């Protein structure tokens, strides 16, 4: 399966998982917009939008439409979330995203997968570069054992310990006054 087919199949799957009333009303148009964007080579980012939409549609409690008295007065801009449905939608969306990233990763294009997700786009390159960093700085990679202290620091610590012991001896012998 080539990349465009994979993207289209993924988007169809995401649409199929939307609640039926929403899918029946807007599903066909969403797919049409996806196809238009795919022709322009901008379809990958729509997958993320589709997953977000899936999360929103499953987490919003369906309410009977209320009469609008003063036009925009009753427009509810907040989400009414049922906790159980929110968790279900979260798990579903995470599984889809994980599968999507895994599949793209296996086909050798993990950067493309990372580019689809705004949050991951910054983190992924660093993760991907980790092995090359180790190769670039072999001395840093080889120093995996316990770190050896600086000899100067050891001398200072020993001198301090000697001073404390001597002060305790003098104190015990009555040379130091109690403050």
């Amino acid at each position, binding site marked *: 399966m080539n990349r465009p087919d994979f993207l289209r199949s993924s988007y169809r799957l995401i649409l199929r998982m939307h609640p039926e009333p929403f899918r029946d009303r*807007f599903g066909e*148009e969403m797919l*049409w*917009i996806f196809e238009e964007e795919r022709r322009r080579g901008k379809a990958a980012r729509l997958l993320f939008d589709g997953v977000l*939409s899936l999360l929103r549609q499953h987490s919003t409690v369906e309410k009977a439409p209320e009469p*609008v008295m003063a*036009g*925009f*007065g009753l427009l509810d801009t907040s989400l009414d979330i049922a906790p159980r449905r929110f968790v279900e939608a979260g798990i579903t969306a995470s599984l889809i995203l994980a599968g999507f990233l895994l599949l793209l990763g296996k086909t050798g294009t993990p950067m493309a997968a990372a580019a689809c997700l705004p949050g991951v786009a910054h983190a992924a390159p660093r993760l991907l570069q980790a092995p090359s960093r180790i190769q670039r700085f072999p001395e840093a990679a080889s120093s995996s054992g316990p770190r050896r202290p600086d000899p100067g620091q050891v001398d200072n610590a020993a001198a301090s310990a000697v001073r404390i012991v001597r002060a305790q001896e003098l104190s015990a012998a009555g040379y130091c006054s109690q403050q």
Partner: protein
Amino acid sequence: MRTESDKTPPLSSATLHILLALAGGDLHGYGIIQEVVRHSDGHYKLGPGTLYDNLKKLMDAGLVADAPKSASPEDDERRFYTLTMAGRSALSVEVDRLQRVVGEARLRLQSFQETRPKPI
């Protein structure tokens, strides 16, 4: 004095952009997306999921409705959306609110520049 905008919550960015796009004329879904990109100079991009989630809310609230079928044969299968009178008044209330915010911001910036000590 309390105005109508004091009684209503501000619109979300997506809702405002959709209403603004439809204020220019009836559009289908993809037309709304393109119009939003155009009037925001490419700074705001709506995905279809976000668009239809907001359109559904707007239609349920009576601010947007299905438009009559287009005369153009190539748009025959497409569903068009139109701004209702309630939608137009909602947009007008939001624009008034934003105008007040911008006016207040300008005043504050002006007084900030006046009170700021000049570099020697």
